[in-house]
């Protein structure tokens, strides 16, 4: 039984929300909030429903032809639902957070409108059933993110927006070329196609390699892999919810998710191994991971440090993809979710410090743990997770990556993992030290850069509780990873059910 209306309905929640928000006047705060939250909740429900149906074995598909031989396909499958679930859940959190964050700031209508579009595109990416559809939403994502990046309208923000566009549009163009080449080789090839591209291997080895390079090259821009990462740290000028969204859910994840799709659903992992591209991918991911960490070490401001940390962390997904074997796959899929939860927490925290205390630099964080204990606790959880310490979710990923590395016959990856863990510790632990052990304005030494009393608790409730929720989720995802519907459980089901014989 195919409920073709379900995927477009889920997709339309955010799109309709965007339209309604654009139509509402700027001053209609309550209405906008209601629409935002209502859409987020409805969407979450629908995605859960879709996920449930996928578990039941119904892959709801909407399909219509766009041009001869090319279809627009929205399809709910396990992998897509995983990403969709993440994006819907984090959208809810981020929306709540953004409502608090942007209180009394101008241009909220525009912000929330494009915000909804952005998440709608992410959902589209998750549910895209073939590369053509994927490309559509991929570019939509680029466009709908631009107004968010330049939201502040300062020269710095505008420059960041320009750099962002230069990178992502170029990447999109490269991707387009790759997709066109692929289609001219295979005609329609949806993600659900059983037959991989093995049949083309004998005659078109070079072309397949080229296509792979173009596809992954285009996606790698969004996934911020070195040396295509330049836009990400700059995009930090955007408001905190946007950074959270960019880093945790939407943009970089879209790139990583695309690489997942290309390797598993378009080429097939066996073919990728056969072509020898997985090793290249692993090396590229390794370089990114190390480079990102090294650069993060040198940052003196909080958000850029987190940004470089993202660059490093997102490539874990790519690394997992490149490790042939169920464990590598599980690691990649799990990290897709785990990194989202942890990074969104960290960005919420960074945003809270900035909003409540005006803190942007790391050396201003001295003693902030006393002033904002919950925020700092959440930050601690996130940071420990990034380092890969149990019981936070990051440990699970690292564990499976290590197992996958052995399984794929690349033990050197473990050395990389250890090295990165140490680097992560090297740039996160000093922050924790400052938060909890240094004396700062909270102890009567100096003053916060710009303190505001936003709420009865340490900061406004809008800002506080989403962050606490994501922190608890990242903790729970690690502590109860072996539960059946944890991210790990879902990822294992996907990996074992879909990609392995």
């Amino acid at each position, binding site marked *: 039984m195919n409920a073709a209306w379900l995927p477009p309905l889920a997709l339309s929640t955010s799109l309709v929300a965007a339209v309604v928000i654009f139509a509402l006047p700027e001053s209609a705060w309550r209405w906008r909030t209601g629409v935002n939250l209502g859409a987020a909740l409805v969407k979450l429900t629908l995605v859960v429903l879709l996920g449930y149906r996928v578990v039941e074995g119904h892959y709801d598909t909407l399909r219509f032809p766009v041009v001869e031989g090319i279809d627009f396909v929205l399809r709910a499958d396990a992998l897509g639902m995983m990403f969709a679930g993440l994006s819907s859940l984090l959208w809810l959190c981020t929306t709540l957070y953004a409502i608090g964050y942007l209180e009394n700031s101008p241009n909220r209508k525009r912000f929330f409108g494009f915000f909804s579009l952005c998440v709608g595109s992410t959902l589209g990416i998750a549910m895209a059933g073939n590369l053509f559809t994927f490309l559509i939403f991929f570019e939509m994502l680029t466009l709908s993110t631009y107004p968010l990046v330049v939201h502040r309208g300062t020269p710095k923000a505008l420059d960041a927006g320009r750099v962002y566009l230069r990178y992502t549009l170029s990447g999109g163009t490269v991707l387009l070329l790759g997709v066109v080449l692929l289609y001219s080789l295979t005609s329609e090839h949806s993600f659900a196609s059983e037959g991989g591209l093995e049949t083309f291997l004998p005659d078109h080895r070079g072309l397949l390699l080229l296509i792979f390079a173009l596809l992954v090259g285009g996606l790698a821009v969004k996934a911020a892999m070195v040396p295509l990462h330049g836009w990400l740290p700059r995009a930090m000028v955007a408001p905190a919810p946007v950074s959270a969204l960019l880093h945790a859910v939407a943009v970089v994840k879209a790139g990583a998710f695309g690489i997942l799709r290309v390797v598993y659903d378009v080429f097939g992992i066996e073919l990728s191994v056969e072509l020898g591209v997985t090793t290249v991918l692993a090396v590229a991911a390794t370089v990114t991971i190390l480079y990102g960490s090294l650069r993060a070490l040198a940052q003196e401001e909080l958000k850029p440090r987190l940004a470089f940390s993202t660059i490093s962390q997102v490539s874990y997904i790519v690394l997992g993809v490149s490790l042939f074997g169920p464990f590598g796959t599980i690691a990649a899929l799990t990290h897709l979710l785990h990194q989202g939860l942890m990074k969104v927490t960290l960005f919420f925290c960074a945003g809270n410090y900035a909003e409540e205390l005006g803190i942007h630099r790391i050396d201003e964080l001295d003693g902030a743990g006393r002033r904002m204990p919950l925020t700092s606790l959440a930050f601690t959880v996130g940071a420990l997770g990034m380092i890969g310490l149990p019981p936070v979710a990051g440990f699970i990923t690292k564990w499976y990556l290590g*197992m996958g*590395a*052995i399984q794929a016959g690349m*033990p050197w990856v473990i050395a990389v*993992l250890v090295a990165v863990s*140490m680097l992560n510790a090297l740039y996160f632990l000093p922050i924790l030290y400052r938060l909890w052990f240094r004396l700062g304005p909270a102890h009567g030494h100096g003053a916060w850069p710009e303190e505001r009393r936003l709420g009865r608790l340490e900061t406004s409730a809008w800002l506080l509780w989403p962050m606490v929720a994501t922190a608890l989720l990242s903790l729970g995802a690690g502590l109860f990873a072996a539960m059946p519907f944890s991210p790990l459980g879902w990822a294992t089901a996907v990996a074992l059910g879909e990609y392995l014989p």
Partner: protein
Amino acid sequence: MMLPDTLFANALWFNSLLSLALLWPLLLAVNVTWRHVTAGDQGVPQYLDGWWLSAPWPALGLVLLGNGQWILDGWILGGQWELTALSRAWLMFTALLWALAALHARGYFAHEQAKATAGDAAARRRLLRLAVLWPLTLAGNILLIVAQDIASFYLGFSLMTFAAYALVIHDESERAVMGAHVYLIMAVLGEGMILGGFLWVAGEAQVLTLDGLREGIAQAPHGVAMAALLWGGFGIKAGVIGLHVWLPLAHPAAPAPASAVLSGAMIKAGLLGWLNVLPLGNPLLSEGFLHLGQLIMVAGLLAAFGAAIYGVMQRHPKAVLAYSSISQMGMMTALVATGLTAPDNWHLVWPALVLFVAHHALAKGALFMGTSISEHLPAWPLMLMWALLALPGLSLVGTLGAGMASKWGFKSALYDNEQTTLIWLLSLAAIGTAALVSVALWRQWQQRQVGKGNGWQLYAWLATLGLALMTPVWLPLPSESMPFPPFAEWPGLVWPLPLGVVAAGLMLTLWRPKPCVVPAGDLWWLYAALGRAGANVYGAMAQRLYITKAAIVKRALAMETLLMQRLEQLLATDAWMRHHASGLMMALAVGLVALLAWESILS
């Protein structure tokens, strides 16, 4: 033991006891936080109250009243918690030491509590931090002991390691910060190595439990390398020579009860790690493991002697004690190594080792607590006090009480295997121990102060002392593995003491190097220099790269400007084309015809 077997073996009973043992410290941490928060901005609750003191008690109860195994399916990667013979004994002495140290802490921090009540914000903050993180450290320690699966073990280990940072840094003096940082850096290094080792083995063998891990290492092609990696990782905690540098820096800085648990319980966790992951006593080991065992033994003996020689030159009694710990751990390392070099004998060695460890834990705990006693000497007879202070030391050397039993225990185990060289070397090392203990006492004597003591402090110390001397009595090991030496053997056990004392005396009188020549932390300063040099090189490289990148960016920008200027020129060309549109049309037409004609000529 005293309970009916049915209850004793009941899974629910065990599980709830175990949960309580783990959760109780966490609950107490929350409780302290809650009391702090509800007390308001300026309010000062009694941080180390009776509840707080009870943190390790459920764990003790678990040892005494529980037995069994608990498999947790949903826990991290699948949990398996169990009280084995080893972990039962281990948990016993660990929990005991924690309980006593907590009591001691109540007294030790009474002064700080008073200051806080008087309105000292800094004291309040420090106390809160300690009161919250002490139970967390404890929880980690308990978890790592009961855990039989890798993830839980690693979780416990990390929790303990990182939470203990707060214990080290407690008084926030410059020295404490320094010590804490060294501790943390080394800890991170250790965590990394452990993680690497775990991943490697678990990936090769596809196992999630420590049992499987041991098997996996024994069978894996690169098993020796894995074992070495894990040995090094845990060795950082256990103070293996070369990786021990944090001990003499962190111990003197930490408060006495913290030092007691650090040295008594936490570095033992490293040792437990070895016992858990190294394929000790496995009769089917390859040649490589034998060499590894020899290497470990050499490292252990080097630590035993080197630390002794270096330690006696220290000024600070706690630094001396820290070196003593290193030395003692060296001896234990050597004993562990026999599990690889002589696996057949391991079943005899390990109970002796556990006894040694347990005794050392309590004795070292007593010694560290003693340093705080000597700073606040009560109005008791001086001779009695110093005798009491010396007692754990004497026991450690092996001249009386439990120390003698433990020493005899491993000696007899080794005799069975005719490892006479090792026995002799260990006896020699005992001279070092004696010398260190005497130096420590001497330093304490030099820095003694009278008064301001506290009953909790004193009686907890006395209890520790007593329990240390009676270790075989309460340690849940089969009593036949803890024989008391026959009288005839006593001289063979006691002789290192006088030699040690004399050696220490000679050392102290003959050569007194300045502290800057023999700084505490020895190799750390070398490492730090190397690290700084490395960082400088990295910084210079980064700077170079940055300059290069800036140059490239600048050039790109210049090119962009140039391009824009060229585009401006396009405008002029466009105007030209506007004027000459009709001429261009003629040219286009003529050109098209020419082209078409040419094409037909070509074909």
